């Protein structure tokens, strides 16, 4: 009978194996979190659609959420610092196991628990709070679980005893290591924060040379600010963005229609009003009758009149629209001054010449043009989720659509906001 050959395998010490697995998990995770930071920078400040190409099915929502940014930097920045520190510890433990293992056990265990805790918290928030699952983030969740297991492997006493006894055993050396770990983490975050802020500022500077819109506005995940908003009673399921020109008679009727319509559906419908002046003095659109009636001045006057006169913005809107009943040009100096005198408003002209007022109107027009609207009145019917615009909008170019048609479009958008698509 042939003698059975007994294979012998070299066995690693527990600490060496733990150090190797720590490194195996932390290095790819480190690279991946750097990638996520770059992804966030490119989508938030450069709007280059990179996220849409590489990150759909949930992670675009998760990475665009407010939780994705902590103290002004993406959460992945903290992830990068975390993995860098873990990697550093793994290298130290692997190369000098006898010197550093006893003192590095506690910080590794704390990091392992913190990583697992963060994964559970963020994964839970994405699933239960946002209703999505971020595939890319899952890669980091897996890495964090691996790091947690490695940290437990390094601590022969187990999780709770390791933590408890580790705290009791803190002496000068282990205290110094803990302090070094904390400092390294903070330093990594600060260095990245500086790099990120620098890159973001560069991208913003470049971007503001060409547009006044943010990436969120460009992607229809947010709307520009407006004083003329009819909010819904609860979180809106549908948001209508109405684009108007004060000198256009259809716009006056359209504004009235949407005010009445919102009252009928105020439980879920929010309507916001934006300028789309087709006077070249305000932006790229040009319509001769509107230009002749100085509609750009009308838009500036409305913003200022509303700010100076106070009260219900829609009453002020109506007052400005009422200038259409005056002789043309509707928004001439005489007509504007007469209106200001009538309501005891001072400083209208100064306010109209302020750069902020003009910028606000320009932003509305830029936004409208970006949404492929070429003439007032126009409207966007946008599904909303968690009170924010979500998904692509239905465009209504020109006014005077039948109520049945509007009803159908609103129903369609509402179904989309509820995910019935």
């Amino acid at each position: 009978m042939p003698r059975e050959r007994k294979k012998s395998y070299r066995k690693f010490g527990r600490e060496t194996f733990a150090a190797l697995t720590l490194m195996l998990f932390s290095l790819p995770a480190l690279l991946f979190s750097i990638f996520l930071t770059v992804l966030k920078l490119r989508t938030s400040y450069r709007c280059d659609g990179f996220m849409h190409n590489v990150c759909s099915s949930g992670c675009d929502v998760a990475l665009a959420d407010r939780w994705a940014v902590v103290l002004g930097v993406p959460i992945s920045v903290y992830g990068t610092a975390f993995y860098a520190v873990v990697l550093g510890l793994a290298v130290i433990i692997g190369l000098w196991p006898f010197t550093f293992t006893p003192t590095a056990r506690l910080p590794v265990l704390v990091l392992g628990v913190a990583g697992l805790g963060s994964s559970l918290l963020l994964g839970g928030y994405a699933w239960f709070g946002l209703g999505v699952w971020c595939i890319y983030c899952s890669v980091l969740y897996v890495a964090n679980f691996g790091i947690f297991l490695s940290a437990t492997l390094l601590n022969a006493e187990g999780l709770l005893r390791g933590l408890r006894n580790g705290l009791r055993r803190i002496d000068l050396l282990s205290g110094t290591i803990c302090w070094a770990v904390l400092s390294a983490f903070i330093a990594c975050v600060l260095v990245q924060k500086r790099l990120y802020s620098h890159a973001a500022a560069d991208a913003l500077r470049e971007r503001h040379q060409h547009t006044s819109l943010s990436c969120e506005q460009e992607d229809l995940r947010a709307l520009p600010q407006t004083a003329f908003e009819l909010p819904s009673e609860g979180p809106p399921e549908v948001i209508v963005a109405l684009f108007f020109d004060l000198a256009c008679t259809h716009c006056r009727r359209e504004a009235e229609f949407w005010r009445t319509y919102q009252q009928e559906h105020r439980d879920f419908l929010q309507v916001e009003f934006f300028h789309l002046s087709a006077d070249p003095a305000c932006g790229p659109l040009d319509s001769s009758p509107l230009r002749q009636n100085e509609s750009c001045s009308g838009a500036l006057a409305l913003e200022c009149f509303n700010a100076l006169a106070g009260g219900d913005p829609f009453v002020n809107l109506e007052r400005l629209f009422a200038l259409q009943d005056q002789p043309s040009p509707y928004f001439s100096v005489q007509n504007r001054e007469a209106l200001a005198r009538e309501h005891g408003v001072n400083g209208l002209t100064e306010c109209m010449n302020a750069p902020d007022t003009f910028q606000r109107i320009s932003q509305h027009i830029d936004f409208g043009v970006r949404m492929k609207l070429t003439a007032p009145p126009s409207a966007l019917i946008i599904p909303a989720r968690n009170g924010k615009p979500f998904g692509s909008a239905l465009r209504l170019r020109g006014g005077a659509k039948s109520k049945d048609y509007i009803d159908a479009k609103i129903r369609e958008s509402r179904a989309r906001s509820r995910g019935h698509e």
Partner: protein
Amino acid sequence: MNKLVQRIRALLKPARPRSSAPVPAPPVQALADDVGVTVLIYGIYFTMVVFLGAALYVVFAFVIPGTTPTIPACRGDREGECGEGKVCRAGSCVTEPALLECAVGSSCDGCACLQPNSCDGANVCQSPKLDKAACSKESIEFVKDLQAHQAACVSNAGGEMLSSCPASKVEEFLLNHQGFDRLLKEFPRGLLFLYPSNAPPLDILEGDDAQKYLWPDEATKKHYVEEVKKLSKELKSARHIVLVGRASRGGTANKNFAFAQARVRFARQMLIDALAETHIERSEASKKFIEFALGDVRPLQLDFFLSYSYPAVTWSSQSIHDLSKTLEKLGRNQALTQSERREMEDMINRSVAIFVIPTECSEGS
């Protein structure tokens, strides 16, 4: 279940009374040989990561062409792109000795006599002679026709953008006014906006979905505005400002027409920015424009352009130097190469000619 509860209790129970000495750390089980193996594994792993990174770089940069396009250092389409003392040549920033601008009446040697000035036979930089607007009967009639054409376009387009007057209508107007360019030249004050290739980028208003090419930047816009301001007195006092947008040949007729429209729109914005000191004045300034987008029909010829006395407003100080250099060559009857001529003709047709029509030449003023 009981076992589990007991284990949890055991875990939570203090291992030793608080008063006792600190718990000794568990012994390190690693072997002395482990370090060598660990170094080896770390080495292999890091090397693998580096190689993987390098392989990905090679694949994306060289194997799959087009995935990482080579970005030129400069495009030569904006002001101050290469910084002081450098100019953009063939996609690279190079140092080129900067020629000072010749003063009017001084010698053209060792300096650049910038357009609209030109070097005369005695090699002296001279400014063009500007006559007063003739306001001939013919030109007054022509202005009347221009206004009528604009009104017709606006009413046909339902009050929308003037420069979107259909190309066929514009051509019809041109057929009826054979002396279109000649007549406009009767108004001696004006500007000629020139644009780099493919600029301004077509956007949503021209039916393009996304603006991939971003132009201009703030410095370039400022350059245009500053150049317009040099003629602000005449522009402010004008009764009408006629804008005629063109495009060079090469693309489709529709695209060229869209480029001409975009150029007119850009020129209009720059004029408003330059002429209106306050936001309220913008509305007043915007009422003066009569706009034409010709596309690539009736291109400007080089010889005709040479007789223009209008200052050219280009996108950068480098481009006006280049233009002046070529014009000087032509003025001295030096032969241009075919590509130089072609480039020059393309450039003068990527333009918007801006004519100032004074009040006295407009009937009913």
